[in-house]
C-alpha cells in the first residue's frame, strides 16, 4: 500500500535509516507523520477524511492530545504510534499502535499493513498512559532500584537472578545504566503525573541521575 511520509524532524522512533522511511512517497492512502512535531503537523494533512489511516508519532503524550476527545466515543482514521525504545538504546522492531474507542478496524488494518510491510512488529493498544511496555515495566524498574537501595542483593546478583530465572536478556540495573537512568526518570515521571500511584514515582536513584544530568554531570 503506498504511503505518504511527512518528517517534522528529530524522530525518536526513527533516528536513523529504516525501510519505513525509504518506502515513503509524496502521496498515498496512508499518511505517516514522524518527528517531534508530528502531532502539530496533523492539521496540515490534506483530505484527512479520505485517508485509509493517518499515523502520528507519539512520545509520552496521549493520542487524544492531538485528536481531541469526547465522552469516550472518540476515534477516527487517526492513530498514534511509537517505536519502542529505552532511553539512549537503539529502537526495537516493536511499534505500539494506539487506537481510540471508535477507531475503525479498517484504519488499524491499513496501518498494520504498512508497518509490518516495513519489517516492524505491531502491538495494538488503547490510548492509555505508557501504552503497553512503559506502563508495565516502569514500576518494575522503580522497584528494582528501590530494592537495590535496600540491599536485597548486589546489582550484579539481582541482574543475574532475573536473567537466569526469567530468561530476560538483561537485568534491570544494567539495562537502566546502559540506556540512561535520567531517561527512565523522564518517562516514569510522566506516567506518575497521569496515573498517580506510588509505583510510578521515580525511584531515588533515578531522581539523582536526573538532577545530575540537569547539571551536566554523569
Amino acid at each position: 500500500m503506498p504511503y505518504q511520509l511527512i518528517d517534522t524532524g528529530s524522530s525518536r522512533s526513527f533516528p536513523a535509516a529504516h525501510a519505513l522511511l525509504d518506502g515513503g512517497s509524496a502521496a498515498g492512502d496512508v499518511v505517516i507523520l514522524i518527528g517531534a512535531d508530528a502531532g502539530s503537523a496533523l492539521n496540515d494533512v490534506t483530505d484527512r477524511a479520505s485517508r485509509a489511516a493517518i499515523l502520528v508519532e507519539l512520545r509520552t503524550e496521549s493520542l487524544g492530545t492531538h485528536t481531541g476527545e469526547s465522552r469516550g466515543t472518540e476515534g477516527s482514521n487517526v492513530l498514534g504510534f511509537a517505536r519502542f525504545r529505552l532511553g539512549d538504546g537503539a529502537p526495537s522492531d516493536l511499534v505500539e499502535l494506539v487506537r481510540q474507542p471508535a477507531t475503525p478496524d479498517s484504519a488499524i488494518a491499513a496501518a498494520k499493513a504498512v508497518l509490518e510491510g516495513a519489517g516492524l512488529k505491531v502491538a495494538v493498544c488503547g490510548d492509555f498512559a505508557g501504552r503497553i511496555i512503559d506502563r508495565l515495566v516502569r514500576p518494575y524498574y522503580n522497584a528494582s532500584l528501590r530494592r537495590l537501595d535496600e540491599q536485597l542483593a548486589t546489582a550484579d546478583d539481582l541482574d543475574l537472578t532475573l536473567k537466569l530465572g526469567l530468561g530476560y536478556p538483561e537485568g534491570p540495573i544494567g539495562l537502566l545504566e546502559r540506556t540512561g537512568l535520567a531517561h527512565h526518570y523522564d518517562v516514569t515521571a510522566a506516567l506518575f503525573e497521569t496515573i498517580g500511584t506510588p509505583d510510578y514515582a521515580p525511584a531515588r536513584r533515578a531522581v539523582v541521575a536526573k538532577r545530575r544530568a540537569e547539571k551536566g554531570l554523569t
Partner: protein
Amino acid sequence: MSSIKTVGVAGAGTMGAGIAIVAARAGFRTILYDTRQDTLDRARRQTEGFFAKSVQRGKLTAEAVETILGNLVGTTDIASMAECDMVIEAIFEDLKVKHGLFSDLNAVCPPHTIFASNTSTLSITEIAGGSGRPERVVGMHFCLPAQLMKLIEMSPGLTTAPEVFDAAWTFAEALGQRPVKTKDNPGFILNYFLVPFNNDAIRMVEAGVAEPADIDRAIKAGLGYPMGPLELLDLVGLDTQLLLCEALHGVTNDPRAACPPLVKRMIAANHLGRKSGRGFYNYDKDAMFGG
C-alpha cells in the same frame, strides 16, 4: 562432591515433574511422589515426551534416556521416600499443607535426610518450623520450566544449620544448576518482582489497555523477553498465581501484589491456563516445553 544419592520430589505437578527431570538427568536416583496416580501418570507421559525431544534434538542418546528413565520412579506411597537423602517439596503454596507433608516425611525419612522447599513466596523459617527438623530445611526455588532453567534461589532459614545449607548448595551444583543465595524474604528475588509484574499485565487486560496477544507481542519484541507475561501466567496456572498473590500480599501489603479480580473469575470458569486447556489463550495439548 555431593553425598546425596537418592532424591525425592514431592508433588508431580508442573514444577515437581520438571525438578524430577533435572535430578534424574544429573544421575541421581529419583523418586517422584504424589498422592494421585493420574498426576504421576501425566508427569511420566510428559517426561517421556520431553526426553524423546531431547533425543530428536541430539542432546541425549536413546541409551542415556533409557538409563535416566530407569532411575526415575513414581509412587503414591510416602513410605517409599524413606530411602531419600534429599527431598524437594514442590506442592502448592499453603503453609499448613506443607507442614503436613513435611511432618509425614519426617516420620518416614532417616535423620540425615535434608528437606528442601521449592516455595517461591513462603518463609523458609516458617516452613521449617512445622517440619520436625527445622535445622535440616532449606529453600531451593527452581524456576519454570524447571527442566530448562538453570537458576535456583537458595535460602537458609533462621534455623538452618550452615552445614545443611552447604550440602544443599553442593547438591544444587551437582544437578548442573546455578545456585544464587538470597535472604529468606517474601518472594526472594524473582517472585518479589515477577508476581506484581504479572498482576500489572492482568490489570492491563482488565482495563482494556490491549489484548493478551498484543501485550505479549510487545514485551517479547520490545524487550526481548522469551515469553510474554500472559503466556507465562498460562504456564504457571492462574490458580497458582492466586496463591502466589495471597502469600506475597499477605506479608508485604504491596497493592501490586494483590490478586486482580480477573484471576478469580478465570479460576471460577476453570480457565486456569495450559493445565485446563484454556487461560488467556486456548490450548489443545499438554506437552512440556523444551527437550
